[in-house]
């Protein structure tokens, strides 16, 4: 009935279900308006060259999360309000072919003029003039990530409207405890609402130490909830005349002041706003670098399920979800590097040996050298990092290069196509760009790409000191930093920007979600423990079995029992068994004896190609880790002789193996090939 080819089958079914269940009622919102401009400069200097909503979040442009969520929820008439780089957004939408995949979907990109339109309020006023809004609609920002089912919210909006004809808007709030990193410090709010109806009574920013409420509030309501555990997701279900309200009050600039105005101001027709509270599903907005980091981690930790990297990605960019929150594409096999946890690695990325990566997002086609340490960083596509670098809590945009032996400290941003190094240490919070920030307008997202001001200057001595001798790009001075006298608010903002990065403790999770059944991410730590435990058991069984030459079938039964006890997958069982066998054997001389004993077991376990590849991969990893590459050839030979490994699989593995291993087993491979030819000749 409906074609939604890019989504996995489960999701497309859901879309159909939603479309079927949605009553054919004019009061149900059908349109969605996406405000694709942030009207601020939190992401400078990155946004000098690209709009925020096209920045990759977990290797996918942010606006794709928003669009997919809306389409999945049955909204087919999407209006994007873009200001800066409208053409880039056009191009992106054309490339992602939403409209071709689903003929019901229409996406219109309305470009606002950067001169007349400087705020959210202006955008709403233009929307009102346009007159394209026909009925109730959903208003979201272009940087929204969510897995919520909009039906419940729309039903509650409908119910509110029946009870209260002045209800004009339902805002969706997510329950998040104060201090959680996904609560952007800027959008920290305290709301006061009627607990029975969820009508919003007061709304104030949590920047002050105390919140004052006038007695009027208490005279008109018997019971009020004051809540600091709610976060505004900026997903709003609006009545058709909401944009007109912005036109009525031309001085309203942003949504917060609009909400405040409606609630408090008597002049505004006594209209009311309700809120809908999300307890179990996820919704958040990437409003600054801090939330960029925390939403990335929420995606990696699967709070946004089913919106996770291994689920919704296009066919040419598929990920496999591995243990400890590691997402790897099929093509990347980083045996030499150590990827610890909570990391996404894009396709065609190469990572050299002895490199450690923790809590990172790494894009496509990156080249990462040897002995590199990367922690808590966001590395976009086609980034080159040379050997011996250390990168901590930084953003490296597409095309950036970090030369040899360079340290990129916490809070650094290397914008597009910049080069730093070699042999330097970037100070914390350094921002490097090749676009000329000093010539840009204040609200930079609007600036067009017309003036190409590459003002990088290799002869500039001070910048060479800071950025390294081969650098390309200049240090970006943000407006907030340059004029410090612009008041408390700006200082605070600058503070947010400097300390955007969030250290993720192991418990960076929404406690209240953990009991929901549909989005239970696998806790990483216990699994690790269970693997260690399982490996221990396997070693013990092997040792005991070998010592008394027990019947090998009994050893296999023992191993299988511990596999179930520790809840280990078949592939992992094979991997740990291989490792146990290799570790058990003290010298390669004795290996034939061991294989003689354990061989039948491995033959049972590894009958097909995939499981034989697991054994081969594990041998390679072990050889590299233990620096026993020279023994790999003997081991392979013995296993081949005892019919554990098949010739074709060894040859296939050899093609993708590490160079060192390749060279050490080359003779054996040559022999194998010859043997093959001989055997084919003899046939």
């Amino acid at each position, binding site marked *: 009935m409906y074609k939604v080819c890019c989504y996995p089958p489960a999701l497309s079914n859901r879309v159909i279900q939603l479309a079927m269940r949605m009553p054919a009622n004019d009061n149900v919102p059908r349109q969605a308006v996406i405000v694709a401009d942030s009207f601020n400069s939190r992401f400078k200097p990155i946004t000098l060259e690209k709009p925020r909503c096209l920045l990759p979040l977990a290797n996918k442009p942010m606006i794709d999360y928003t669009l997919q969520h809306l389409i999945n929820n049955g909204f087919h008439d999407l209006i994007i309000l873009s200001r800066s780089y409208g053409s880039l957004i056009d191009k992106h939408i054309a490339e992602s072919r939403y409209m071709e995949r689903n003929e019901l979907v229409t996406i219109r990109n309305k470009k606002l003029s950067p001169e007349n339109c400087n705020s959210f309020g202006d955008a709403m006023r233009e929307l009102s003039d346009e007159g394209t809004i026909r009925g109730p609609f959903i208003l979201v920002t272009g940087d929204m990530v969510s897995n919520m089912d909009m039906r419940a919210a729309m039903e509650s909006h409908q119910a509110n409207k029946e009870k209260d004809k002045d209800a004009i808007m339902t805002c969706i709030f997510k329950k998040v*405890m*104060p*201090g959680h990193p996904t609560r952007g410090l800027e959008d920290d709010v*305290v709301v006061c609402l009627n*607990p029975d109806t969820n009508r919003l009574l007061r709304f104030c920013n*949590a920047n*002050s*130490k*105390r*919140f*004052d*409420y*006038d*007695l009027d509030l*208490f005279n008109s*309501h*018997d*019971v*009020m*909830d*004051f*809540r*600091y*555990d709610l976060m505004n997701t900026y997903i709003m279900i609006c009545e058709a005349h909401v944009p007109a309200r912005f036109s009525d009050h031309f001085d309203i600039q942003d949504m917060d002041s609009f909400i405040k105005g409606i609630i408090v101001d008597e002049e505004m027709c006594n209209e009311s706003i309700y809120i809908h509270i999300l307890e179990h599903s996820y919704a958040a907005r990437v409003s600054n670098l801090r939330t960029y980091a925390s939403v990335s981690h929420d995606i990696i930790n699967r709070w946004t399920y089913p919106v996770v990297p291994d689920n919704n990605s296009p066919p040419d960019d598929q990920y496999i979800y591995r243990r400890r929150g590691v997402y790897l594409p099929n093509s990347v096999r980083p045996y030499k590097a150590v990827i610890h946890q909570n990391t996404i690695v894009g396709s065609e990325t190469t990572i050299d040996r002895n490199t450690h990566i923790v809590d990172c997002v790494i894009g496509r086609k990156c080249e990462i050298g040897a002995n590199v340490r990367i922690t808590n960083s966001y590395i976009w596509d086609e980034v080159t990092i040379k050997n011996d670098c250390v990168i901590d809590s930084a953003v490296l945009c597409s095309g950036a290069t970090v030369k040899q032996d360079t340290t990129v400290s916490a809070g650094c941003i290397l914008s597009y196509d910049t080069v730093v190094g070699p042999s330097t240490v970037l100070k914390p919070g350094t921002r490097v760009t090749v676009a000329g920030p000093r010539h840009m307008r204040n609200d930079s997202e609007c600036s067009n790409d017309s003036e190409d001001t590459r003002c990088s200057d290799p002869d500039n001595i001070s910048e060479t000191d800071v950025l390294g001798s081969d650098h390309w790009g200049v240090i970006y001075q943000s407006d907030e930093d340059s004029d410090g006298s612009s008041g408390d608010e700006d200082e605070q903002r600058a503070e947010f920007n400097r300390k955007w990065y969030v250290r993720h403790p192991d418990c960076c999770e929404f406690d209240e979600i953990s009991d929901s059944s549909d989005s239970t991410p696998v806790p990483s730590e216990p699994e690790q423990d269970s693997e260690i435990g399982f490996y221990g058991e396997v070693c013990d069984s092997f040792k005991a079995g070998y010592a008394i030459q027990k019947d090998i079938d009994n050893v296999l039964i023992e191993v299988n029992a511990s596999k179930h006890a520790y809840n280990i997958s078949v592939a992992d069982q094979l991997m740990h068994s291989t490792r146990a066998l290799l570790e058990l054997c003290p010298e390669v001389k004795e290996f034939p004896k061991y294989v003689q004993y354990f061989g039948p077991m491995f033959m049972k376990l590894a009958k097909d190609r995939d499981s034989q590849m697991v054994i081969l991969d594990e041998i390679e990893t072990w050889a590299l880790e233990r620096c026993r590459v020279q023994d790999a050839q003997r081991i392979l030979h013995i296993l081949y002789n005892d019919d554990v490994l098949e010739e074709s699989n060894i040859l296939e593995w050899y093609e993708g193996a590490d160079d060192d291993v390749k060279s050490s087993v080359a003779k054996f491979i040559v022999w194998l090939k010859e043997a093959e030819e001989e055997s084919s000749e003899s046939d």
Partner: protein
Amino acid sequence: MSPTVLCPALEDEKSDEETPVNTGVSSANFRVRNRRRSPEFTPVVMAAGCGSQMFELSHDRAGKTPKCMLPVANTPMIWYSVNFLIANKFEEIFVVVRQGDKDVIESYLTSSVRKLELDVHIEYVCIDDDADLGTADSLRIVAPKTKSDLLVISSDLITKVSLSELANVHRANNAALTALVAPRYSPPTPDGRRKRNKKDDRDFIGLDPEDDRILFIANEKDIEDEISIKRGQLTRFPHMRLHTNLLDSHLYLVSRTTLSMLDNHPDVSMMRCELLPLLVRKQIKQIVNTNYTVFADRIYSKKQDIDEDSKHPDEYFDILSEPESVGCYVHHTDSFTVRVNQLHNYIKYNKAVSENMDDIIPKNDVETCDISKMTQVGKCSRLGNSVKIAEKCSFKRSFIGNRVQIGPHCKIVDTVIMDDVTIEDNVSLTNCIVCKGVVIKNKCTLKDSRICDGFEVASGSDYVGESLVADSEIPNMMSFSIYNSGRGSDAEDLSK
């Protein structure tokens, strides 16, 4: 929350609760058990209040009716709290009274308790008439006399709540203080809607909806024009539900730790206005100490103390169970609960108590009364002992005290008449409060008025909405700001 029952003793009471207490039947078993060990709570009745919000009926001058002796449904209001405690099988009750009021209260309570034929010991704690002591000061006096937690009850509280439920909340939370809150009483109106009386002082009570922890407490009269909520508080307890329609009943269970804290804060004098906010602030400021060694050290050092002083072993367990954090909680009740502390509610609450507490209120002795058969007494009215009523009177929703004499052709509606009042013929009273010993001459018409102790209303008077006060009292009265019954010239009118 479903509080667990920790002590079977109080659970017994729950089953007995329905039995009217003034029948004098009680479980002998429980009393024996109770005697063997000290009770879990020691009840303290706060009866030293001077009734600042109903001073026309009672004020701090000696010789007047103390506030706690004002009749509610023809029974002095202290009876309700003492009876509540007796019904819950407390055998030793502390009553805090002013020195000057002690004799009146003691003689009344002694005779009332004797009628129940129960072994209840009431100990009077006197405070000086002139001393400016608050309820927290009274606690300091009572605390050393007992080793258990205190149950503090105000003498103006009239409630049907189950104490065991309240106690369970206190035990389950290991609370520093547990308060009883109830919906503010309002009589059902014909259209089913409840309207707020603007004169009521509302309590603003902020609770954590999860566990009913008190996060904010203030009375309307303490607040000027806005309420501030601190961010630190919301960070620790991010969800606060603020109720404006709940009544803080002034019935508290106070733990020993709170009592010992009182010693560290000598400036705290009032329980409701100072101690409670202090506790509420403490639970927010507190940083929970998870450092085990520190905790262990503390136990160890305390243990040393115990060894030295050879204290009772129970106290050792007290230290183990010592709350790491201060917690103030409330127990919600839907049972009938009112506090008779404001003048404008006085008549309304008389009616409400008469309706709801019928089983508690002692019946009058009909034999002593002399009521003409030609007189109509409405169903909702209540008569005291030795009442003398002449013919052709009519009473509706009124309360007539002991030894009242009423002449013929009187019409009395929605009125409270206290003891020893004399009313001559052809008097019409509507919505009035007539205090002790008042004489109303013939042909008077009074509406919405208060006639204070010993006043004599001249014949043929016609008053609406007045406070009638005897001459000698006026200068004294004027010092109260509350004395404003609508017109500034009242005093001149009355001094004629």
